[in-house]
């Protein structure tokens, strides 16, 4: 009976794949690939039962220089003990992962999903709560979640169950061009453990001396706003899921600070991500503040070797829980329900991303800094980086990460984020903060209906 059902399903999947082929060839390739994998995995599980001998895992992730590289390294580490396990990484941009996931989950046909996929932390709650059937509970999978930074695992916990194995670190770092600061008579110490008020004062000095703003940000995106907010442990949502925008005093301070940054010219807004990266790589701007993964982009400016330094971000003024630490971005591995050989997937994740210092040492070169605590003790993390003046930046970032206040992303994170971004744009153009926040909260509440 089961066999018949299975074959029926497969025939169904193949027909849909055939029809879907009309739409896009890449889709077609991916789904046929997956049908094949399903077969392999099914065979493997019937052969070996519980233990994970042989088999194949398909993985979706998006950055060849970063997470794909890391996954391939993980495969190499795992294959040392399990030579007959095959890991196939399919490069899928995050937007496509989200679209494909939505399509598969709403159609109820999960067969097009891979065994493991990488998910943005900010989208984790939304996807797990919207499509509970598409993900596998990892709480008892053998991965020791207590060894990960608590603020990080919180992104992938729904109803007390773990759905994701944390991958990269998004601890916020502030990066500065020391040679530019020097022209204004400042050093990196003038930017360490400071407040935003001091930052603006310093920024004015740099602006006067060199004509360069201290920081650039993408207009219409509110990355910096969210980083500032989290640095004081504040979120756009309350514990019970209701919006926390109008009565959020921290958010008001954040908005005021952002407006002042923009008005004084210390912050300049650009239109797109490439312009943003270009602004500090070309030296038009004296620094930036972002998740530590931004280092990979900074390092592309090889001519500025040794002229960069890293420190913590400024803290908010007049907010009780203000700290110099925050988080932006980062992602976690999820196991889908389509995974036919769950034991293999569990064992793979537990013995690589959840248990191998060797892996984390290998992937440090691409800027993937662990949220897995034991990795930070490795000697590799204490080594200096010549690009950043010989500073042991990795150890520094691991230290920052442990101090990041956790926040609540909630299910409606992207709705709230966009609403606040709209408010920010209007506030910069002179609108009243209180009315704009009210509009933002109304928009979010409307979306939550």
């Amino acid at each position: 009976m089961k066999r018949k059902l299975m074959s029926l399903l497969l025939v169904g999947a193949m027909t849909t794949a055939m029809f879907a082929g009309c739409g896009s060839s890449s889709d077609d390739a991916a789904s046929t690939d997956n049908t094949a994998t399903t077969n392999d995995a099914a065979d493997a599980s019937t052969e070996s039962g519980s233990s994970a001998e042989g088999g194949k895992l398909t993985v979706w992730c998006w950055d060849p220089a970063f997470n794909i590289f890391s996954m391939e390294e993980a495969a190499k580490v795992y294959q040392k003990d399990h030579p007959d396990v095959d890991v196939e990484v399919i490069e899928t941009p995050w937007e496509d992962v989200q679209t494909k996931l939505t399509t598969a989950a709403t159609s109820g046909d999960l067969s097009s999903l891979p065994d493991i996929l990488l998910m943005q932390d900010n989208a984790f709650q939304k996807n797990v709560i919207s499509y509970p059937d598409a993900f596998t509970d990892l709480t008892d999978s053998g991965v020791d979640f207590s060894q990960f930074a608590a603020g990080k695992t919180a992104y992938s916990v729904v109803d007390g169950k773990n759905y994701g194995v944390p991958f990269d670190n998004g601890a916020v770092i502030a990066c500065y061009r020391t040679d530019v600061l020097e022209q204004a008579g400042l050093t990196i110490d003038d930017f360490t453990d400071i407040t935003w008020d001091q930052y603006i004062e310093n920024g004015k000095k740099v602006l006067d001396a060199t004509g360069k703003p201290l920081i650039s940000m993408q207009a219409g995106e509110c990355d910096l706003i969210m980083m500032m907010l989290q640095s004081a442990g504040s979120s756009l949502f309350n514990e019970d899921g209701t919006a926390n925008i109008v009565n959020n005093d921290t958010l008001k301070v954040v908005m005021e600070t952002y407006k002042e940054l923009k008005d004084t010219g210390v912050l300049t807004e650009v239109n797109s991500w490439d312009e943003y990266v270009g602004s500090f790589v070309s030296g038009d701007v004296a620094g930036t503040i972002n998740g530590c993964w931004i280092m990979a982009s900074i390092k592309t400016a090889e001519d500025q070797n040794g002229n960069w330094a890293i420190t913590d971000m400024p803290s908010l003024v007049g907010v009780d829980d203000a700290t110099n630490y925050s988080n932006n971005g980062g992602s976690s591995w999820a196991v889908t329900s389509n995974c036919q050989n769950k034991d293999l997937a569990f064992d793979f994740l537990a013995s690589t991303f959840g248990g191998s210092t060797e892996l984390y040492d290998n992937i440090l070169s691409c800027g993937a800094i662990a949220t897995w605590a034991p990795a930070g003790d490795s000697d590799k993390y204490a080594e200096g980086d010549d690009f950043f003046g010989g500073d042991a930046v990795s150890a520094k970032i691991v230290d920052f990460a442990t101090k990041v206040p956790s926040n609540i992303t909630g299910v409606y994170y992207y709705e709230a984020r966009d609403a606040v971004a709209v408010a920010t744009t209007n506030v910069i153009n002179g609108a009243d903060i209180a009315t704009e926040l009210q509009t933002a909260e109304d928009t979010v509440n409307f979306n939550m209906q």
Partner: protein
Amino acid sequence: MSKPSMKLSLDKKHNLTGWIFLTPGALLILFMSFVPMIKALILSFKTGNGGALTWSDPIFRNYSQMFKDTVFIQSIKNTFFYLIIQVPIMLILALILASILNNRNLRFKGAFRTMIFLPCATSLVAYATVFRTLFANNGLVNLVLTKIGILSQPYSFLTHVWSARIIIVLALLWRWTGYNMVFYLSGLQNIEYSVYEAAKIDGASPMQTFFKITVPLLKPTILLTAIMSTNGTLQLFDESVNLTDGGPANASITMSHYIYNLSFKYVPKFGYAAAMSFLILILVAILAFVQMKVGDKRD
């Protein structure tokens, strides 16, 4: 073989052959196009997030909800701004270009036609990205304007409401004028050249020939392009996403862009998003109907 089928008249036989040829295409359209449409209509009466959908209560809740949605209303306004400003300018430009290129005495006609039509061969995403780069703070436009002294410092075109909208209109003009021109050119081929010669002999000025001969005779083509452009503008998506990302503060977001956000960026609300797409369908239908009533004055 049964007897009645042998007795098919020639006429019926021809009809049958026609239907046999039609069937595969018709069936494909039915299953690939109409069935999903009906499914979407059913979907638009459901609410819920993600896959868990239930019938909405009251049944038209999604449709009434729309008019309380400030972002959606903003997106309707934006879309109609593009429609009202861009479509007439584009069609007039296309008409002028077509009548210039239709001149028999013009040299290098082929080269000009190709050049004007070429933008249509570019991908929507690619050209939107190019426009974004052109109007960036350190982009070509700002560079030229500051070098010749019109601006003292770069103007951030894409972060100001009106300049952002106007750039989308400019981009659309660049992309689609040539496309519409080709329709007019082919329409002009059907107008006898002797009509123009006669007009010339009667002493008609170029302006008079344009308004008294070209425009009336091209009416069906103008109607066609107007309906197609209206339809295309109401479904505008790529430019909003790639050129301005709907910004600043949703000032240039289009209806389709918002529908996309609701389905894929935010917590998915497919019922609500489907209802919005049906509103677009209704709008397109109404506008096309009005245009046909106004434009088509055949007796």
